[in-house]
């Protein structure tokens, strides 16, 4: 009996020991990231979701130019330098030599990265007759969304290490577009090989890139494994293995972080933030997001054609109460239409003060002493820039009621909402924007330029002075000059008040203490090159 008991005890002990000791390949450093979902695929040019970019472009690929980690500053990537012609319509990229592609089960590269890879990457998206254009559904939403088909006239291979992009018009933000995820460079040699083998879609499922990590295994909704690419051109990553443990529920992600089952987690539940902050084993990082949430006025509709009405309504909104009640503290009041992490952000802009008395007086001055009735359109979805549009609408409704403006809250299903606001059916509406390429043009021209009326400019704001400034800034590639123009444009914006700028969300990223050199990406990405784990 006693002997049996001992046997059982030893057995149980062994069991426990095997259970706890995971197989570690001789002190290899492994970083586990509890990601929020499965990627749509592994070719970033085909998709638009951040989750997909985290799994593909941000680990596996490089671009001609890149964003310096943690900033929106453009630095050389696969191109060591670039020249812009005097007319601003030709961009010539000098390519980096000695860059290796990953070796996978399907593919062993026989040459280094060169101009053919760049041509393949962009021609696939640009040329509708390219043999790869229709592969994997063939919809290049970001390439189209950034108006690249209209912008690009031709892409020319000058020699093996020089590529020239010829544009239809001068467009300074072009260089920032080249740093975006859709511009990730794929291997032309791999594509040719897969086409020969009759399995072209493999290029998009089993990626071959030049990036710091290479894909080892993907199991949908479960796990993505990468290993550091030893021949990476910037030097091998400090960690050896990178694992994405796909964990869709934010509360569960936090439990996993606490239990040490992962090192970094995205998108914490706002309700958990206080506890995370107090946890000694967790470092709660935060930064303002590359976004803006706003309430726009339909500037073509009475009474919002009158700038005094818009100003008065701006002054009636209690932003602090909104940040407390809607963002639960995870937001910073916005005064400009661009977030502070973007270059050319104008610090000198003076925000409309919260002053119901002055608002009322200004409304009377505009010819509405007794106020008027209108509507507030509230989005039906949660967005980083606006976590609860309905609640925000209720707060603004109450604020406006105090100056005599009676507003009815209107909401539609999301697709319908976007469509109707585009057509201008609204009086006032809520929306926001998350930046794509860190260029001020991506906010100011897209959301407030005359070309955007009937499209993404839902305030239907078209002001000559503002338009001139942003058009001028588009055509010069001198960053100092562009900065000056955009700073001025922000002042015009504030004076004309087509929106009430509400807030920029604050992004929180809890990481475990042993993680070093992690940086929050202003674009909302999660980048693990340059990150290390303390022993």
């Amino acid at each position, binding site marked *: 009996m006693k002997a049996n008991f001992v046997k059982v005890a030893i057995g149980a002990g062994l*069991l426990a020991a*095997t*259970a706890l*000791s*995971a*197989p*570690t390949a001789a002190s290899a450093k*492994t970083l*586990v990231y509890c990601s929020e*979902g499965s990627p*749509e*695929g592994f070719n970033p040019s*085909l998709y*638009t979701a951040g989750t997909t970019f985290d799994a593909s472009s941000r680990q596996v690929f490089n671009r001609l130019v890149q964003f310096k980690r943690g900033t929106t500053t453009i630095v050389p990537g696969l191109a060591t330098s670039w020249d812009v012609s005097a007319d601003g319509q030709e961009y010539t990229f000098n390519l980096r030599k000695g860059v290796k592609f990953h070796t996978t089960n399907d593919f062993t590269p026989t040459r280094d990265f060169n101009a053919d890879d760049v041509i393949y990457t962009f021609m696939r998206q640009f040329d509708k007759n390219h043999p790869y254009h229709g592969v*994997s*559904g063939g*919809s290049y*939403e970001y390439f*189209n*969304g950034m108006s690249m088909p209209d912008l690009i006239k031709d892409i020319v291979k000058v020699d093996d290490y020089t590529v020239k992009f010829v544009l239809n018009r001068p467009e300074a933000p072009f260089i920032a577009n080249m740093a975006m995820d859709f511009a990730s460079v794929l291997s032309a040699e791999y594509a040719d090989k897969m086409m020969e083998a009759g399995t072209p879609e493999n290029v998009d499922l089993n990626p071959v890139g030049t990036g710091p990590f290479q894909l*080892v*295994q993907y*199991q*949908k*909704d*479960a*796990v993505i*494994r990468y290993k550091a690419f030893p021949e990476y051109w910037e030097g091998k990553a400090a960690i050896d293995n990178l*694992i994405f*443990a*796909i*964990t*869709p*529920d934010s*509360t*569960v992600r936090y*439990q*996993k972080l*606490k*239990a040490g*089952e992962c090192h970094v987690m995205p998108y914490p539940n706002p309700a958990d933030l206080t506890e995370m902050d107090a946890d000694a084993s967790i470092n709660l990082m935060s930064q303002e997001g590359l976004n803006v949430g706003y309430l726009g006025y339909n500037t073509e509709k009475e009474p919002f054609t009158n700038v005094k009405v818009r100003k008065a309504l701006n002054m009636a909104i209690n932003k602090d109460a909104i940040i407390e009640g809607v963002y639960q503290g995870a937001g910073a009041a916005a005064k400009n239409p661009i977030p502070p992490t973007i270059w050319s952000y104008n610090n000198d802009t003076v925000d409309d003060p919260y002053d119901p008395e002055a608002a009322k007086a200004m409304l009377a001055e505009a010819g509405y002493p007794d106020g008027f009735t209108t509507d507030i359109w509230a989005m039906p979805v949660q967005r980083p820039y606006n976590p609860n549009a309905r609640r925000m609408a209720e707060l603004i409704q109450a604020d406006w009621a105090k100056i005599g403006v009676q507003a009815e809250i209107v909401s539609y*299903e*999301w*697709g*319908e909402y*976007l*469509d109707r606001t*585009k057509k201008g059916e609204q009086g006032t509406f809520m*929306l*926001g*924007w*998350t930046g794509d390429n860190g260029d001020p043009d991506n906010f100011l021209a897209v959301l407030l330029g005359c070309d955007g009326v009937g*499209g*993404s400019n839902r305030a239907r704001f078209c002001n000559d002075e503002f338009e001139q400034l942003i058009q001028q800034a588009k055509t010069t590639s001198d960053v100092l000059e562009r900065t000056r123009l955009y700073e001025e444009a922000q002042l015009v914006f504030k004076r004309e008040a087509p929106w009430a700028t509400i807030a920029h969300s604050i992004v929180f990223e809890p990481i475990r203490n042993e993680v070093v050199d992690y940086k929050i990406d202003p674009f909302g990405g999660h980048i693990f090159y340059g990150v290390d784990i303390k022993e």
Partner: protein
Amino acid sequence: MLGFLFRRLGDIIPTFFGVTLLVFFLIRLIPGDPILMLAGERGVDAARYAELQAQYGFDQPIIVQYFDYLMGVFQGDLGKSFVTKKPVLDEFLVLFPATVELGLTGILFAVCFGVPFGVLAAINRGKWIDHLTMSVSLTGYSMPIFWWALLLIMFFSTTLGWTPVSGRLSVMYYIEPTTGFMLIDTLLSDEKGAFISALRHMILPTIALGTIPMAVIARMTRSSMLEVLGEEYIRVARAKGLSPLRVIMVHALRNALIPVITVIGLQVGVLLAGAILTETIFSWPGIGKWIIEAMNRRDYPTIQGGILMIAFLVMGVNLIVDLLYGVVNPRIRHKR
């Protein structure tokens, strides 16, 4: 028996048409244009919109779309996902084993605890043990799954550290899926400790998923047993001097089990519904979570394909349950 099987199979065909019809048209009634949903704030211009409509076949009349879909289904083609652009059937087959594995352990848990609890409560009717099991099962039945699952995680994983928080296997193990069933794949692999890890990962999701069916089964077993225990043949069996255990296990339980089997069969639907929540919370890569995500994105082919496959599954299980009746009770199989 064979005739019975064919008759039941004959019933499945109209059901199948009904399901395709319902699913196809109902999801198109959900407001929200999939193309606009995908485009979001960025929007899509009119030319591109028309191009995408043509690509997805939305430019065709809806009846034509339905028949195209139906023809595809007959050829085993459930279409391609709007989001991942991969064949729906391929995605389903990858994720399905995970749901089945959890469903099986869930129902096993429910039966292994539910039936004995029910029997125990029945033979101790009115005593404390009856009250205890019945109030426990009522609590289990009323507990929202997501809340119960989070409680389990917070207590067993975070506080006590006995079980992993979520997932199917520790990420430290590298297993290539062969059968898709983690318990089998880990046994087949030469990674030491992977099987134990898979087993430990199963515990909490199994409990979370199996609790409601367990409560239902326990209550059903109890009432069915009580009914049977009042029958005359039980009194006869007792009078003949058979041991109480034999009377309960052989004479009473076998007859009491018929309604219980029906209930177990019906629990498959409950398990699949519960799987949606359980899979989301425990990051379990199954079809419940997959369909929910597809609904949020209006990914029509995935929703259609997923629901059709689930309907097939439920019909299949019901068929098996009907056949099982025949095994337990020969009278049913001979009835015309």
